[in-house]
């Protein structure tokens, strides 16, 4: 098990950080939130040009042929910068789903386009309550003359309002099945949802006899499990990046802000709170590196490692963001300051792939309890 990134991985991190610092600083992040598509297309194409959208895609399919360790580093940097971008939807969920299914033609058709960012993909699985239902839920897929149609509602769907490719898990007469739906397909209604986190768009997708392409898969439910585990790792990486930046900004402020004649960071209530966040961050980084390593090198370990990653980092990142707001005082509660963006992103990320209690229940189950 390797928990220390090699120099190539650190170079990748530095390059992404530099790029985001130049092209997606906080002012730019705020500027794109209200418009459409809710992220900066220039940032998206810049990320594509850096080759970071297809890191886990094999080279022969236009990807980087790297792995989850590398992708986690990119996710960490995107989390640090709170970058609004459909990375989790497209470079993680949709990409991993295509790789986990057994549909060679679909892979060959979509993966190269996902890797270049020209196509944005997503996965639509959640229905009520946001939990991922392995059965396909109440969305049904029916075939007539060899043509498939979907009917049902998936919500919330990451980047669902803009994605050009939607991979849907639906119920067929023979159990769950995976389907590819064109974002512009007839009978597909996409409704942007109001979100707690303004930096990440979510949508409800309504399928009404929507034409869909059935994707070959030996075990659709198992594929979903893999997709969920890998997403848990990528999201946890993003959460550690968020924690790190939240702490940096908090420490900076605590060093400068003076009350009662002393910098507030010299008061132990504040100092110890920061120390606890730091300690949690060190743990989170270790957990995420282990999970990313397992994704690349030990798939048998991945289910526990992924559940552990979400169990640990979700609440830890929210604690870090809460501390950030708290130690910035009134400034932290003010719209102009970024603290609320960290807070909202952290809370939303904590629930995005299922509740913390749900992750702990999964972890308990996977530990054989």
């Amino acid at each position: 098990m390797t928990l220390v990134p090699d120099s190539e991985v650190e170079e990748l991190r530095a390059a992404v950080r530099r790029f985001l610092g130049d092209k997606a600083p906080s002012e730019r992040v705020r500027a794109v939130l209200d418009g459409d598509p809710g992220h900066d297309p220039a940032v998206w194409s810049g990320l594509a040009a850096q080759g970071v959208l297809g890191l886990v895609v094999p080279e022969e399919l236009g990807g980087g042929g790297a792995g989850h360790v590398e992708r986690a580093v990119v996710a960490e940097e995107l989390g640090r910068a709170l970058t609004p971008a459909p990375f989790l939807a497209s470079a993680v969920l949709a990409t991993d789903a295509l790789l986990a299914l057994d549909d060679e033609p679909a892979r060959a058709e979509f993966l190269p386009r996902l890797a270049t960012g020209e196509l944005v993909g997503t996965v639509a699985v959640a229905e009520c309550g946001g939990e991922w239902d392995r059965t396909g839920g109440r969305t049904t897929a029916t075939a007539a003359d060899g043509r498939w149609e979907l009917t049902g509602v998936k919500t919330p769907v990451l980047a669902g309002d803009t994605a050009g490719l939607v991979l849907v898990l639906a119920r067929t007469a023979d159990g769950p099945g995976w389907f590819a739906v064109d974002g512009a397909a007839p009978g597909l209604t996409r409704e942007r949802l109001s979100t707690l986190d303004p930096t990440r768009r979510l949508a409800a997708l309504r399928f009404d006899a929507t034409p869909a392409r059935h994707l070959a898969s030996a075990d659709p439910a198992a594929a979903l499990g893999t997709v969920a585990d890998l997403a848990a790792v990528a999201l946890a990486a993003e959460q550690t990046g968020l924690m790190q930046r939240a702490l940096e900004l908090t420490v900076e402020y605590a060093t400068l802000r003076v009350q009662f004649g002393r910098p507030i960071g010299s008061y132990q209530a504040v100092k110890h709170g920061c120390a606890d966040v730091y300690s949690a961050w060190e743990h989170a980084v270790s957990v995420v590196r282990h999970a990313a390593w397992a994704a690349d090198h030990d798939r048998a370990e991945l289910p526990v490692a992924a559940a552990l990653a979400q169990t640990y980092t979700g609440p830890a990142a929210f604690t870090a963001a809460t501390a950030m707001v708290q130690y910035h005082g009134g400034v932290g509660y003010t719209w102009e300051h970024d603290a609320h963006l960290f807070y909202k992103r952290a809370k939303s990320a904590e629930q995005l792939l299922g509740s913390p209690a749900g992750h702990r229940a999964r972890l308990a189950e996977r530990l054989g309890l």
Partner: protein
Amino acid sequence: MTVVDETQETPTPEYRRAVRAWLAAHAPGSLAGLPADEQLRRSREFQAALYDAGYAGITWPESVGGQGLGQAEQQAFSDEAAEHELPLYPFMIGMGMCGPTVVDLGTDAQRDRYLRPLLRGEEIWCQLFSEPGAGSDVASLQSRAVLDGDRWILNGQKVWTTNAQFADFGAVLARTDPDRPKHAGLTMFIVDMHAPGVTVRPLKDMTGRSPFNEVYFDDVEIPVENVLGEIGGGWHAAVTMLGHERVSIGSARRPRRSPLEFTSLAERARAAGVDTDPVVRDRLAELYAHERALALLNSRIRQETAAGRPPGARGSVLKLAGALQLRRAIEVAGLVSGADAIAWDPSDTSGDELALAINAAPSSSIAGGTNEVQRNIIGERILGLPKEPQVDRDVPFRELAVGTQRREGTR
């Protein structure tokens, strides 16, 4: 349940296999129940066997009797050792703290004299820092050493000195110049615990055992060659030793089956039939997450150390997290065991073990620097947050009362 194969952490599978085989053949098993003398004799025997087999002082230089190997080998050994209940407790302070400090700061003569017997289990060491008025604030200690010809004369009282009851030598920190500010006037010495004027009195701890002591020094003579480090450089020596201490406490691998670990508590939950209770499962999963996160952080820091990035103050993160994990585990133990955690059949030794673990837990939040002090270290040395205002900086020690307050009418 999947378990990570820790062997993957190390580039030394053969070394690890050899350690495993050696321990399987030579680990003496539990010494519980034997008389104290007998336990100590067997412990010494085992430490000597470790030395002869090449497993003592793995990372210490060969020139002092160590093995001159790297962190990877040390890690492999610690991992394997965690599978056994090894009787290494008497040597813990010498091996983890005093010895490495002698390696770092000792003269050639000191290294020649002390390190090999320490590694062979022939001589036991203790660390004499804390005093009744100076614990967290070690530098406000009052013990005095005065130079008299070719020897120093030591007077004072130390407290909570682990293993002093069987120690042969101690690293003692004493004030040698009360006219200087408190951190500047200290010197570290190697003191012979059998010298005239040394009195050791056992102190009972809250578990009812007596692993630590009060130590009195009455005109104890210390030869000048026993200064460890520089005269007046005691604080530097202390910081060096405390650095080793944090790492050795923080990264010590507890025996895998301690009663407050996830696996033991999960077994208890099964035995008590509460493993299907959603609250119990939730809390156990959370406990596992923190336990595993700490283990992974430990592995990561060791890998970084092996790659040339020493842990520095991050040892405080490990130590603090270890202490907090015990508190979490005690809560879960209560949830899992209910009334069985407070009263049990006398024939059930697992009840005794759990009770001992619960009662011993607070020591890890205090010994070796309290949780609060660890947080100060993390905040100030790692995050660079401003220090607290210090009332005693730059003030000659003799003007301070009780170590920290300026005396009335001085200056």
